[in-house]
């Protein structure tokens, strides 16, 4: 808002143009999202079943009360939380190590980085099917390698204790390259002078990483963490293809349980109530991310947001 005032008056005069250009997109987005959200808010107060002939009744907050007592709901929240936490810590750790390693190898760096990125740009449907074949008990390469090492073979997605870690492996494979690429971009934007000074001071490599590099990277790290958190929270596709939530409910995340209630059991009202829990979580996460992404008007960002953190 401050920035608007500093703008030449001509810019504030363009209000009509601004409204006309922003309106079509905004109207479409409102029709496509606000209406459905309001409609499902209403549904969430009813006991509507999709294929039922009985007219739906208004049940107030009963669906929400039922949610609180639904063990499967809590376990799906637990699965979603466990998934998100492992995704963020493991992918960030390995992604950082890989980014630091790639940084040391300037030759062919961009080519290697793009090659490594292939998993992240594939459809999750394609990725899931590749892993389904890799996970195959008798003919899959993973168990073949375990056999070579004289280790016991694993039922990757059929064992209740292993199913979630197996999905995490697929997500790790698909998204760690993406994390690596973001952190590598962050490293490239760091000011070299800081490190020169530290080196002259006789700091060790580890000290430089710990006290210079990581603090300067914190903004890129924050954005990466939030993007992966949201991705992990939304995870649906690989569950749909690889485990369908099973065995039992071992891999039923919030999004997937929501789908099961709505599209398998047709409990539309109940499913809508669950959607609202997701919506609230996403809104909170989006609030956080907005803080990291917004920049002042018309002021070109210093190369990467990181540079601001350096000041």
């Amino acid at each position, binding site marked *: 808002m401050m920035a608007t005032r500093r703008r030449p008056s001509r810019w504030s005069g363009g209000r009509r143009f601004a409204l006309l250009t922003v309106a079509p997109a905004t109207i479409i*987005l409102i029709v496509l999202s606000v209406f459905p959200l309001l409609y499902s808010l209403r549904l969430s107060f009813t006991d509507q079943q999709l294929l039922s002939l009985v007219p739906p009744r208004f049940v107030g907050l009963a669906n929400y009360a039922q949610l609180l007592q639904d063990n499967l709901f809590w376990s799906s929240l637990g699965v979603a939380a466990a998934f998100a936490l492992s995704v963020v810590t493991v992918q960030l750790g390995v992604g950082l190590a890989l980014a630091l390693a790639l940084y040391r190898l300037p030759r062919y760096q961009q080519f290697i980085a793009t090659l*490594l990125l292939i998993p992240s740009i594939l459809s999750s*449907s394609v990725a899931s099917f590749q892993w389904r074949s890799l996970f195959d008990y008798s003919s899959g390469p993973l168990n073949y390698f375990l056999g070579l090492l004289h280790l016991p073979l694993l039922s990757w997605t059929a064992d209740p204790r292993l199913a979630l870690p197996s999905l995490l492996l697929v997500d790790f494979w698909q998204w760690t390259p993406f994390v690596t690429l973001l952190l590598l971009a962050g490293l490239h934007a760091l000011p070299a002078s800081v490190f020169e000074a530290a080196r002259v001071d006789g700091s060790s490599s580890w000290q430089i990483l710990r006290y210079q*590099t990581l603090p300067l990277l914190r903004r890129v790290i924050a954005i990466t963490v939030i993007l992966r958190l949201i991705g992990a929270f939304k995870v649906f596709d690989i569950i749909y293809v690889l485990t369908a939530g099973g065995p039992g409910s071992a891999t039923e995340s919030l999004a997937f349980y*929501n789908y099961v209630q709505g599209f398998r059991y047709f409990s539309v009202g109940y499913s809508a109530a669950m959607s609202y829990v*997701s919506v609230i979580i996403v809104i909170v996460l989006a609030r956080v991310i907005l803080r990291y992404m917004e920049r002042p008007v018309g002021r070109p960002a210093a190369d990467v947001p990181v540079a601001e953190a350096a000041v």
Partner: protein
Amino acid sequence: MTSTAAHSPFPSGRAVPTPVTGGRGGLLASVVGVAVGSVFFLFPIYWMLVTSVKPPSEWLTSPPVFIPDRLYFQNYTDALFNWGGLKGLVDSGVVAVSATAIGMVLGTFAAYSLARFRIGGTNLSFFILSLLFMPPVAIGIPMFLFWSALGLVDTYIALIVQYLTFTIPFIAWVMKGFFEDLPVDLEESALVNGASRLRAFVDIVLPNVRPALVATALLAFIFNWNEFSIAVLLSRGRVTTLPFILPTMMESHYVLWGDIAAMAAVGALPVVIIAFLLQRYLVRGLSFGAIRSE
């Protein structure tokens, strides 16, 4: 990128102090790390490609066949003609191209106003950003009821319009960043010379962000091409995009890994080509505009 490392013809890792650990040991560890990483991240891709050219007798062998004796391309003709891959290519293409084209027009205009006029303030920005991160399942039920009420479930229109819920926010958000990076002087001098705002935008601003427009459009295309959850919720078998076809191939008793791998490869090829064309823009696009990379 500000760093010289990425563009210098010679490795500068040891000559210039870097944010990264020094020494020969560090360099060796880096080479090993990148090599191990490459094997892990690329092996499944190799497995897909090699499976796609294996004859049926080698699909389910134990031990698995890593290097087939001969190349068997019939999987591709099976995938394309028997499993509807060709129709899948057409459907994916129609949906992805349409959603991207409409999204580009609406999203770019919106982005310009968001960047230059701060129209709608943070509330509008926040609204658009939230949509980008909304899980499709969260609006799945009303979305499905809406399209059934219109009798349009399982049609191009439903998918294209529904894909706009994330395509417009994505394009608006990334292009907003590019417009913010563009100095305002250019448009201001055009306005002083009597151009209308629309003229200034079309004649002055757009040509200056042409590479960004191309990059954003291609990334939006990748997301639309790959989309799976909405397709699952809104397709019943008439409109079949490639990601939607793959699960339908699992229903048979005998798992047709060769055909599945061929279909997956057909679906992957366009996005991989685009990614290599777009190397410079990938970071910015994939981070939804949050991180710049050149």
